[in-house]
């Protein structure tokens, strides 16, 4: 392997990107920084769907339930003063979403394609209904749960808006790094192999169920992390964060950005969030607009924006395993 111009160019892009994010609070106006935080948190959510729907090819319409679970963990724990410490809350959130994924995964992962879609949809609706009605006394029901505090890190370190931005940036960066490594790892390649040809993977000796199950849990926990950061950010949780609408939105973002790619989630989250912000000024029918965009992408831009941009820059084929080239 030799260093060439391509690697140098990539490195420059990464450095520039990094600087952009690191220095954002200093040059972005307040509303833009708030949008950026939202984008970053959302990109974690979309990345989690990318694992399931992008790498594994298991399209899910119920993933919001993990996001919402994470958010409600934060909400319930902090508003009732049960736990104050940020780190403890996060750990509990991990455990809660992980447990949920582990239990549901056993049922759900065995299902084939379309039935998987329907059952994830069903489970998402169950989650929504539990939060909205069944456990309304704990969750605040359809009115939502408000008054969440910013994260309390334990030592006398208060979180103001700037600090919070860096916290979110850190979490997002770590998450991105994880996704980057996953994509290029043997595990990641196996996932894509399963997507392409599950039958052959089995025939070669791979225990496909374990891969699907593990990925389901990982994706669930990741989504939950996003939900937790969201709760700390917006300081308000409502059952809609668990429902079909948000699950669908995640899918839309994933497709806009480029399903199965590393940067897809970030690009998709950015485009969707920005568009929604600006379109909502003029009309309340954002749902319809997002539907139209989605249809357009599905019909004409199969690989999402990342593929499109890649093609423009005439870089290597997107969607392949992105493994290193050997002599």
């Amino acid at each position: 392997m030799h260093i060439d111009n391509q690697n140098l160019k990539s490195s420059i892009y990464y450095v520039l990107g990094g600087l952009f994010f690191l220095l954002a609070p200093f040059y972005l106006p307040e509303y833009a920084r708030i949008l950026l935080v939202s984008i970053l948190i959302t990109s974690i959510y979309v990345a989690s769907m990318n694992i399931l729907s992008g790498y594994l090819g298991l399209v899910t319409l119920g993933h919001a339930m993990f996001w919402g679970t994470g958010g409600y963990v934060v909400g319930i724990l902090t508003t009732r003063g049960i736990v104050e410490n940020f780190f403890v809350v996060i750990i509990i959130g991990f455990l809660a979403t992980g447990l949920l994924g582990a239990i549901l995964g056993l049922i759900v992962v065995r299902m084939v394609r379309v039935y998987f879609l329907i059952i994830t949809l069903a489970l998402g609706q169950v989650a929504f209904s539990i939060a909205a009605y069944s456990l309304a006394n704990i969750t605040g029901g359809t009115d939502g749960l408000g008054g969440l505090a910013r994260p309390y890190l334990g030592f006398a370190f208060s979180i103001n808006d700037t600090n919070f931005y860096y916290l979110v940036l850190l979490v997002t960066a770590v998450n991105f790094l994880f996704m980057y490594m996953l994509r290029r790892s043997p595990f990641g390649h196996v996932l894509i192999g399963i997507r392409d040809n599950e039958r052959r993977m089995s025939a070669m000796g791979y225990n496909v169920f374990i891969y699907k199950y593990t990925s389901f849990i990982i994706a669930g926990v990741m989504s939950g992390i996003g939900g937790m950061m969201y709760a700390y950010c917006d300081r308000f949780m409502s059952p809609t964060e668990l429902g079909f609408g948000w699950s669908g939105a995640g899918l839309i973002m994933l497709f806009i950005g480029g399903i199965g790619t590393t940067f897809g989630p970030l690009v998709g989250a950015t485009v969707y969030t920005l568009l929604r912000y600006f379109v909502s000024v003029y009309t309340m029918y954002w749902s319809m607009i997002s539907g139209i965009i989605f249809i357009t992408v599905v019909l004409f831009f199969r690989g999402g924006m990342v593929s499109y941009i890649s093609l423009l820059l005439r870089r290597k084929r997107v969607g392949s395993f992105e493994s290193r080239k050997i002599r």
Partner: protein
Amino acid sequence: MEVLRVEKLGKSFGKLVILRDVSFSVLKGEGRVVIIGPNGAGKTTLFNMITGELEVTAGKIYLFSQDVTAMPTYRRARLGISRTFQIVNLFRSANVIENVLLALKANNKCKYQIFRPMGSYTNLYENAKGLLERMKLWDKRYFNIGGLSHGEMRKLELTLGFAMDPKLVLLDEPTAGLTMSESEQLAAIIRGLSQDVNLIMIEHDMKIAFELADRIIVLSQGGILADGKPDDIRKNQRVNEVYLGKKK
């Protein structure tokens, strides 16, 4: 040592009977076994049952002297059985070398690794290089599957079958769709690869079948019609009746 034993194997879908009462066994080092038979005889179904992709309705299957009748496919693969497919069944998102790497990883501990990049496993790449060079596909290693000719895809299909050093390989019509000369080239490769591996092959091309076979099993209408050396099969009257005009 028995590599494979199939005992009174049967398969039906409701009232539809595909296979009935199929029994035979293959010994280690026995040489190449070729299964022939008219369409619909149940050959691929037989393969699918041996690999575990299709459930057994009746009978038992033993791989390397172990009862695998209820064992899931991936566990059977780990015992040392591998197969290729009648319709080319490659990984279309990946290029040639990545396809091979997927096969090589299957038995390697690294397949659960998330935190190290695939590129760091140079020994696997060396293996892949060896395999691809033998198959004369090394130059095309970065080609995406869509850019390969049918003959090259068949060769890659074969490569995947042999990549994991299996003890028993099932080839399902490996020359399907190839020209005469391509078929002969592939047959030569198969002959070379199967020196220390047990090979069972389904073949429609009679010339290749009789050329490569050390033993022929004739399957017809779900049952074994004949089982023996190629010369005996050639002279077998019932086989001739079933195959009127098809044999060379």
